[in-house]
């Protein structure tokens, strides 16, 4: 097909499109690429946990509780119920990533929809939508997440719901401000003057210009979301035992810091590695898109 050859020419740089330029610059950023590799490894670990995990993540033996790192058969030791730490850390990637990434993903769509609507329509609609957003923005994010999931009670769904509500306002705010800026550009005026409907203008002219900045902003929230999601489970909200989840594991191992301190600290290290990788990737994406924070 001719389109295939056209694409090869494009990526070779004669007339690169915006996104291929961004990807090429991102590809040249060693730190961002390393972060991406780490994230991919985490995702693969989560998907193939039953194949990689050497043991049963739920079955423990009281006789082999809290073994140190390097015990034969238990390379990363065992937890307070004698379950294999390595297996539980691998399985933990499933719920931890799910609880961390999903809220930002859903909030990205809802927040963008609210912000673009408010920004494009302006006027009273903008006032009503954005003042409502302001109310939720008036809570510190940790407080709002804990207030909501504290009132709703523990559980995966309640945790996801609370975190999604936390991340909608910041995304809506960014979406509103970029859309308001784009709406004033002349070609949007021209499209409106030539009789295009609001939906067409948003779809054809606005969306392509605003989705990039909103997306980068949202990727920057993933690390916050991961820390918060595991934080909820750490407090006993969010994921319930015996599910393997890094924050919850950190919580149940808290009393073990006097017996096996470094085994107890392992789940937190996983949260840290994942969260810093998302931050580095988001930073790389931002500079590849040449956006100011």
């Amino acid at each position, binding site marked *: 097909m001719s389109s295939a050859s056209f694409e090869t020419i494009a990526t070779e740089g004669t007339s690169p499109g915006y996104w291929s330029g961004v990807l090429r610059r991102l590809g040249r950023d060693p730190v961002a690429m390393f972060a991406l590799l780490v994230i991919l490894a985490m995702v693969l670990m989560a998907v193939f946990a039953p194949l990689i995990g050497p043991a049963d993540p739920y079955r423990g033996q009281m006789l082999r509780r809290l073994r140190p790192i390097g015990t034969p058969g238990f390379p990363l030791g065992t937890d307070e119920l004698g379950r294999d730490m390595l297996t539980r850390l691998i399985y933990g990637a499933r719920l931890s990533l799910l609880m961390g990434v999903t809220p930002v993903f859903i909030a990205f769509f809802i927040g963008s929809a609210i912000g673009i609507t408010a920004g494009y329509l302006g006027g009273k609609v903008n006032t009503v939508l954005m003042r409502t957003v302001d109310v939720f923005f*008036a809570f510190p994010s940790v407080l709002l997440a804990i207030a909501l999931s*504290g009132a*709703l009670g523990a559980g995966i769904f309640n945790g996801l719901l609370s975190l999604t509500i936390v991340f909608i306002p910041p995304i809506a705010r960014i979406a509103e401000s970029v859309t308001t800026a784009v709406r004033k550009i002349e070609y949007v005026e021209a499209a409106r003057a030539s009789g295009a409907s609001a939906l067409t203008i948003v779809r054809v002219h606005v969306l392509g210009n605003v989705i990039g900045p909103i997306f980068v902003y949202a990727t920057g929230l993933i690390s916050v979301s991961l820390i918060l999601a595991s934080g909820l489970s750490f407090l006993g909200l969010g994921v319930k035992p015996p599910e393997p989840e890094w924050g919850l594991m950190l919580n149940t191992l808290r009393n073990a810091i006097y017996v096996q301190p470094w085994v107890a600290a392992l789940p937190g290290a996983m949260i840290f590695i994942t969260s810093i990788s998302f931050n580095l990737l988001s930073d790389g994406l931002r500079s590849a898109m040449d956006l100011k924070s």
Partner: protein
Amino acid sequence: MLVYVLKRLFYTLPVAFGVSVVCFLLVHIAPGDPLTSVLPPDASAQLQADMRKIYGFDRPLIVQYGLWVLKTLQGDLGVSIATGRPVAAELRLALGNTLMLAVLATLIGFVLGCLFGFVAGYFRDSWLDKLASFVSIIGVSVPHYWLGMVLVIIFSVQLNWLPATGAGPGGSADWAWDWVHVRHLILPAVTMSVIPMGIVARTVRALVADILSQEFITGQRAKGLLDSGVFRHVVKNAAPTALAVMGLQLGYLLGGSILIETVFSWPGTGFLLGQAIFQRDLPLLQGTILVLAMFFVALNLLVDVVQTMLDPRVQRA
């Protein structure tokens, strides 16, 4: 200026109203009856109805809200279901402890963040910049509750230098600024300071790099301005924004202290919040969240006003 302050105040009122509605509704989105945690499961229907009447849960929602706001404005946040003590009294002590911790953490974070951010922005793209930027990205990426655990492992469990939990021998009731008490404050404050440190460092780095790339700096340098003079310009231009970020960070720390207070069993608002959640003590939950959120709203207002006063370029009125 006065007009701006009044306008800003006027704009804050609907937000404060919205915040109060959200806090009020928290009790009502909670599944189950708010009284289930106090009443024994075999309580008679008569007792249940009486309790509902005492707590006012039998009235229409809007009346409950109106009465609640009236009482709250008089400083009455209701009675804790679990302890039977007034929520306001429980909060007063806890709020003092959290303020102490959060203010100290913000100061440490601000000083270190400015230092790292300034070095990174001033020596842009040098190894110093890379190092300082790396430290600041660690600051924003680390799960602070885990960092707290790691610090406890190192300084309490292994080295036995500092206490792992609590606020001193007498809880927090006999707090004094002596070593016996202050040593309890060190680990939580350092742990908490990591978040503002990272955010302030990133902000200051961007600010300094931006100011240095402006033409007036090049112009002043060409006219023979020394590095110390440039430094003065940078500080003057960066200070309002950096201070604003610091103010907001204090608000975030106050509201988000629950994780760190849980790790260190620090008797502050976060600890109270944790208790309220697990004992399903809804009046305590509601009161604590309302006070913390209103504190944040007021702090936002204050930061905006102070920034406008410090920075003549911000003319929003």
